[in-house]
């Protein structure tokens, strides 16, 4: 019983990170129709950035998260402007953004190798106070990951529903041409959304950084899982990304504990196929 509870909590913690990553991915897809396969690489860079800020500047963890979020948002906007944007235009095909993102993955990986080297980095002990109850262990950082993710999701929801800028983002997602007719600068909306998506991925990486090490490979799973989540939740759907993130977190945790850790990816994809067989547009997909 306590193992089930422990496993569920583990799943919610990972699910929080998955949700944040998938939120950015789904928004970028919904607004810009870009399959950003470099999303996991942004996650990885986020990890290195927070590590650098904390180790070099000696900044407090939460302030470092904030700085990382801002730095990565700016970085994301610049990258979007320099790569995905020029790849749009009259000659673009759905392949254009794919090629751009694959190019980015290579550039990012090599740059990270050149800047930080191949050796994994660790943040060391951050918020390691433990709570024990019902034979279950949670550390403070794990609680904070979930709390931070929930707050971020709520803030995002408020931003999208209650602010003019947020509404212009939603409008662009629902009908880009109409949005333009309302006087919305949709390519600026694209930049903002891309920046937000990158920032969310970086925040997720920052939140998870104390639990694992920071290395070149840390984003690989995130891209795959991110796409699994948004396909499962419905491409472009925000509730789909949130719920899908937690579902995937629970699946990966439960299957790692109860079935076989070796093949839990098989189970993840199995569930995806099952859901798509029942509802081809995903849980919250339109149509």
């Amino acid at each position, binding site marked *: 019983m306590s193992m089930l509870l422990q496993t569920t909590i583990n799943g919610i913690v990972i699910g929080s990170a998955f949700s944040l990553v998938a939120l950015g991915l789904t928004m970028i897809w919904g607004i810009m129709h870009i399959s950003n396969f470099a999303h996991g690489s942004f996650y990885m860079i986020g990890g290195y950035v927070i590590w650098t800020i904390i180790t070099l500047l000696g900044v407090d963890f939460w302030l470092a998260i904030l700085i990382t979020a801002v730095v990565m948002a700016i970085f994301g906007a610049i990258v979007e402007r320099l790569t995905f944007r020029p790849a749009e235009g009259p000659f673009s095909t759905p392949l254009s953004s794919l090629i751009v993102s694959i190019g980015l993955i290579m550039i990012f990986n090599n740059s990270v190798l050149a800047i930080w080297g191949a050796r994994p980095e660790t943040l060391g002990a951050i918020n390691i106070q433990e709570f024990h109850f019902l034979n279950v262990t949670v550390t403070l950082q794990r609680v904070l990951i979930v709390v931070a993710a929930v707050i971020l999701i709520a803030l995002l929801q408020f931003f999208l529903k209650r602010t003019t800028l947020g509404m*212009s983002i939603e*409008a662009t997602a*629902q*009908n880009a041409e109409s949005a*333009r*007719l*309302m006087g919305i600068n949709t390519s600026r909306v694209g930049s903002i959304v891309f920046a937000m998506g990158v920032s969310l991925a970086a925040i997720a990486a920052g939140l998870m950084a104390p639990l694992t090490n920071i290395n070149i490979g840390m984003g690989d799973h995130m891209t795959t899982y991110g796409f699994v989540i948004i396909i499962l939740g419905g491409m472009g759907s925000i509730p789909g990304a949130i719920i899908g993130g937690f579902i995937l977190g629970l699946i990966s945790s439960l299957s790692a504990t109860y079935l076989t850790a070796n093949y839990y990816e098989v189970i993840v994809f199995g569930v995806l196929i099952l859901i798509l067989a029942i509802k081809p547009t995903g849980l919250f997909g339109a149509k």
Partner: protein
Amino acid sequence: MLLEVVNIDTYYGDAQALKGVSFNVANSELVTILGANGMGKTTLLKTITGLLKPKAGTIKFYEINIERMSTYDIVAAGVSLAPEGRGLFAEMSVLKNLLLGAYVHRDDKLGNKEMMDNVFELFPILKERQHQAAGTLSGGEAQMLAIGRALMARPKLLMLDEPSVGLAPQIVAHIFNIIKDLNNRGMTIVVAEQNAAMALSIAHRGYVLETGEVSITGEAKALLNDDRVKRVYIGA
């Protein structure tokens, strides 16, 4: 002239959809663009609003060339389009659709409130439905919302792309009454229509588009009596 379109060529890839179209609208005029399916009405309105860029020709709005401007600048300058198929934000409430219509005036909360009241006065049903998702409105209500949303931008030129499509005759009549009424109050309006009889009955002038070219143009009354127009578009 409020709007002056001169010799516009617009393409979809290699396919030319507008061929040297010239078209103008004077202040406070109600002008209709007639044409059967696929003749280029929508293309012309999209070109004016900057959604499509013409390969050749000029478009002047208040004597300023707008053919290279971005849609958001053109909208901010005072051109508003209720697009074909209404283009509502289906998952958003009626209220939010209207608020987005006022996007270019987003900092003028008071003015928007006033404008919203005007729209609700014009279309009382929208007020009743304001919290409902736009996607759940009936065809007539949806068209009213599309017009209301375009009005929220406080346009100097209001353009409507086939407002009658898919609506019952009495609703069409109601909407056209409102269009006429708006025009009477000084609003400059362009209506693209297949329903020529209806459109010509309220318009001052009309243009007939045939495969991307202006084939006939003139006073509405003259067009109503033109044999070609009668034969093809009114079916008399």
